[in-house]
């Protein structure tokens, strides 16, 4: 079993009386794509945002390679490079004022990577399947699928160790979903990238994840190899999720 890159221990988060995360524990291995499945609700996204540092948990801890991950304000530049988040909404995650080149180069600028950045941006965009002529375009000129690719490129340009993908394909058409997911799988093979794929869609998890973890009421109710979980779910909630998928 690959060594755990990300370890989540006893994470708790409550909004008033609603316990969204209830002593949750999870591990993502080095170079692994782990799917986190569950209903639409605050739980999965809250977990994703806590790992990314945008929110803080009430208690518990998150460790990256045995080093504790504080919320964003406490992270140094190197730590910011290691963990990246790709958001759900391709229409909101790119600034409408920045052209593609500037949007993807932004992390490099913020991290004070010495210029020129153009070559690196172009290469990253090529890897996500975007042609060089899109460099000068504004997000308004791109489709949802194209914007999401740019968002993924932006997350990849710093070569992070872990990417948290928060429902990244749920706003895209069925055809586009597979393309983006294949992209991530390709980067995993290339960079040894680990991915925490948060989704409510069983089909999405099934298509690209090595392992699947199912979340319900703030806890992980099932976890295991994808094929096993789909063929032989041990938890009734998992079975309900799988059955609910429309089929041809």
């Amino acid at each position, binding site marked *: 079993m690959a060594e755990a890159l990300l370890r989540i221990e006893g994470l708790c988060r409550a909004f008033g009386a609603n316990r969204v995360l209830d002593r949750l524990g999870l591990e993502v291995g080095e170079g692994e794509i782990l799917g986190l499945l*569950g*209903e*639409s*609700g605050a739980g999965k996204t809250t977990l994703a945002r806590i790992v990314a540092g945008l929110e803080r948990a009430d208690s518990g801890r998150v460790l990256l390679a045995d080093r504790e991950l504080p919320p964003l304000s406490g992270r140094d530049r190197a730590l910011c490079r290691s963990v990246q988040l790709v958001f759900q909404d391709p229409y909101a995650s790119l600034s409408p004022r920045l052209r593609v080149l500037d949007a993807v180069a932004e992390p490099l600028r913020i991290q004070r990577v010495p210029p020129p950045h153009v070559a690196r941006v172009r290469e990253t965009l090529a890897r996500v399947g975007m042609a060089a002529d899109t460099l000068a375009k504004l997000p308004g000129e791109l*489709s*949802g699928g194209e914007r999401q690719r740019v968002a993924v490129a932006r997350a990849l340009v710093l070569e992070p160790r872990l990417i948290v993908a928060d429902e990244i394909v*749920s*706003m895209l*058409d*069925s*055809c*586009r*979903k*597979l393309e983006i997911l294949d992209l991530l799988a390709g980067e995993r093979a290339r960079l040894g990238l680990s991915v925490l794929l948060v989704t*409510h*869609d*069983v*089909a999405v998890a*099934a*298509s690209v994840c090595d392992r699947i973890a199912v979340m319900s009421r703030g806890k992980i109710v099932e976890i295991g190899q994808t094929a096993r979980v*789909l*063929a032989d*779910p041990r938890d009734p909630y998992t*079975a*309900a*999720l*799988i*059955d*609910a*998928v*429309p*089929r*041809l």
Partner: protein
Amino acid sequence: MTARLLEVRGLRARYRLADRVVEAVDGIDLSLEQGEALGLIGESGAGKSTIAFSLMGRLPPPGEIAAGTVRFLGRDVVREGARLRWREIAMVFQGAMNAFNPVLRLGAQIEEVLSVHRGLGRRARRRRVGELLEMVQIEPACARAYPHQLSGGMRQRVMIAMALACEPKLLVADEPTTNLDVITQRGILELLRRLRRELGVAVLLISHDLALVNEVCDGLAVLAAGRIVEAGPAAEILARPGHPHTRALIAAVPRLPVIHG
């Protein structure tokens, strides 16, 4: 000979933007019989929502219907739209669950539809709201709730109840389950199937998800770049897809094992 429920011939619709004109729908034919369910499949930008609005007889500006006819039981929808809208043809828009007025209770919003289109008195309205909510399997007590107090899936059910308020013959549902999780989605699909069975209402279901549409509809029409590239009974099209676009859509559906019990 009785007229078809819905007959669309040569529909063309476009959007006049500041610097150019976008031809969104480029000559399509559609037909629907009473009680039938037709699925309109296509990617984003193929023109699905434009068609849905055209069926109501009016596109939001800067859209306009350029050519063609849309007939509902023989009546021209573009001319008589105001009389047909909501009473005979009702629509559940994309993201409708977010279209509720946040400061009015849900019951009041449904009652508004009833008083405008049906002219019902207060007691009759209350009773009808209770009936409608039961029909979509929502607790009648939720009529007193505000939109933000209900989950997305429940709000979508209330939206469907609102669309059915005047007992329309045709329900147009534009991406009714986007952004809802699988379990809630399954609930909405079951609801649509049951409503068809019990009320005999015809359904035009618009989506990019082929499997979803297959669960509810008998017939399919595949839309690409403003044109219908393939149409016919769902079973036939899925078994023997003719157009490469259809084949691509079928290939995009994941194969998952079926688990029983």
